């Protein structure tokens, strides 16, 4: 059962990711990203991380992709006659293929992967919370500041001019 699900989800994820890369239309690309996300969320569930799957869907599907779609609609960029690819195609494909090959090669040569321990800690909400608020409290605080400057940055970059103080 799990194996079948894995294959289905993996194919779904990769295929939709391919859609993001090759599709001419930005809207379709965003939809591809969305489907890819769904596949990933499914894989997360397979990996015993349903909470992460939920967060992924919330943040990405709920916010990021929605934002993308919103912006695409807002900017109304017509999928013009221009080709969607630049002339760097060959280079890019080569590098990408190289990366792929590296990944497969490393796996095929059995890069020494650590074996699974006997007991797996259950990733419950409580476990995550404990980690986040003890060990990783400092990065959590830092991320808070990061979100603050991101918010301020978006405001600065989008606010109307005449209210700014330099104008007086």
């Amino acid at each position, binding site marked *: 059962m799990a194996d079948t699900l894995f294959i289905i989800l993996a194919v779904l994820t990769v295929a939709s990711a391919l859609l993001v890369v090759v599709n001419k239309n930005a809207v379709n690309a965003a939809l591809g990203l969305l489907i890819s996300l769904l596949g990933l969320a499914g894989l997360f569930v397979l990996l015993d991380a349903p909470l992460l799957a939920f967060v992924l869907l919330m943040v990405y599907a709920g916010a990021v992709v929605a934002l993308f779609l919103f912006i695409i609609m807002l900017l109304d960029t017509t999928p013009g006659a221009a080709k969607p690819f630049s002339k760097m195609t060959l280079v890019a494909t080569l590098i990408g293929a190289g990366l792929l090959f*590296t990944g497969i090669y*490393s796996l095929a*040569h059995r*890069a*020494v*992967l*650590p074996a699974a*321990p006997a007991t797996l800690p259950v990733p419950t909400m409580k476990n995550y919370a*404990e980690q986040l*608020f*003890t*060990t*990783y*409290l*400092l*990065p959590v605080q*830092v*991320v808070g*500041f*990061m979100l*603050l*400057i*991101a918010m*301020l*940055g978006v*405001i*600065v*970059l989008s*606010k109307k*001019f005449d209210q*700014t*103080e*330099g*104008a007086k």
Partner: protein
Amino acid sequence: MSTELLKLVAGSNQWWALTPEITVACAALALLVLEIFLPKEQHRFIPHFAVVTLVMVLGSVAVTFEHAWLGEQLFGGLIKLSQLGQIARVFFLLSSLLVCFLATICLPRTRMPRVEFYHIVLVVTAALMLLAQSNHFVMFFVALETVTIGFYILVSYFRDNALTLEAGLKYLVLGALSSAIMLFGIVLIYGAVGRVEIDGVVHTGFEYGVVADFLRHNPHNFLATAGALLVLCGVAFKIGAFPFQIWIPDVYQGAPTPVTAFLAVSSKAAGFAVLLTLVLNVFAPLSAVLVPVLSVLAAATIIAGNLAALSQRNAKRLMGLSGVSHAGYLLMGVIAALSVPAAANAVWFYLFTYLLASMAVFGVMAHLAGADDTHQELDHYEKIARERPLLGAVLAVGLGSLAGIPPLAGFMGKLLIFVAAFQAHLYGLLAVAIGGVVLSIYYYFGWIKAAWFETWSLNPAGSEVSVRPVTVPSWIGRTVLTALALATVLLGFYQEPLTSWLMK
């Protein structure tokens, strides 16, 4: 929440050790509070608050330089306090202070909000200090991304200028790309190292110490090596090493001048602080792979930076590309540090001299920039020496130091690195570096020439009126610029203050 948990929090999180970072971050918040509560006509004092805070924190770090916790791991191993960390703190605080100074010159020319700028600078400063002291890849990545996102905003801050936004977008795309590559590297390392149990506590492949241990025992692990290389790619982007230097000229030109200075000095120094930690402590067992890769990178960086800078006429692009070549010399120092430990101090010495000289030059540039911040050509420097001898002199000292002309500080920096490289037997690289220095004399001298020689002719034939009005430096501006120039000259003659402090 159980009491046990609270105890754990209290036990492993030594917040007081991070007082400088916390103070700076709180000051950033206070700026926003001040903006809300202060009456509008007093808003111009808000930047002063930021500057005063930075000065105070800088002073307190300098006073408590050798505190009791040096060498200790805090926050359960997220942070490691060290001598180099203290040096990095001083460096970033000083640099941000000067960036704030530049901002007080440049921001009033635009109609952009000001408080937010200082707020972001302060937050980025705190993150930079954490970055240099992090001992754990999660902390490292979070701090790095905070810095990066801050820079995305700062680079595109003058959004009424399309070129600035274009630079912002370029920095955004390439920065995000490098972050993604680096992240994948971190993940690979994490996966390769796995879990280690010491005294019943599980340690993961995020901790520098664990990774170093693992690599010492498995120097040929493919996943870990690939991960390390990917992480170094990300760092190479930060420092602008070849082939990740392509973003530099465009972004440096488009970014507001204070931000260009911030990028050139702090961002680059952060890259080298991280690189020194990673290469010397974490990835040192991979030196058989790293040394050739880094050597080729360093040589290519020096060549690419210098060749590209030769034909530049835009001052900001020139600073960017010449900065690339400086990154090359510094990389040479990092490689040398693998076999000659003193080279790490030489790298920091170089970074400090680079800070002083670059900030002096950017200070002059900030005074000369007109309404269009992206349009700063060398031709605009004509008549500067005659009309504003102070600016001309500071510019000459700064550029001279960058070019590594004795007796200025930059020469000492280069000398120490070259000596270290020689001791590390990096002869080929040294030859490339020497060639680079000679090339750099050409374009730095061209700039000095533009400011000093061309107009000082006895027969001012075809003299046209200087197109752009120069911002007259205030007394603060004069003081800061003079101090920078004097420090650059002084460090060339008398290095005791800095070296005694770096070599402890």
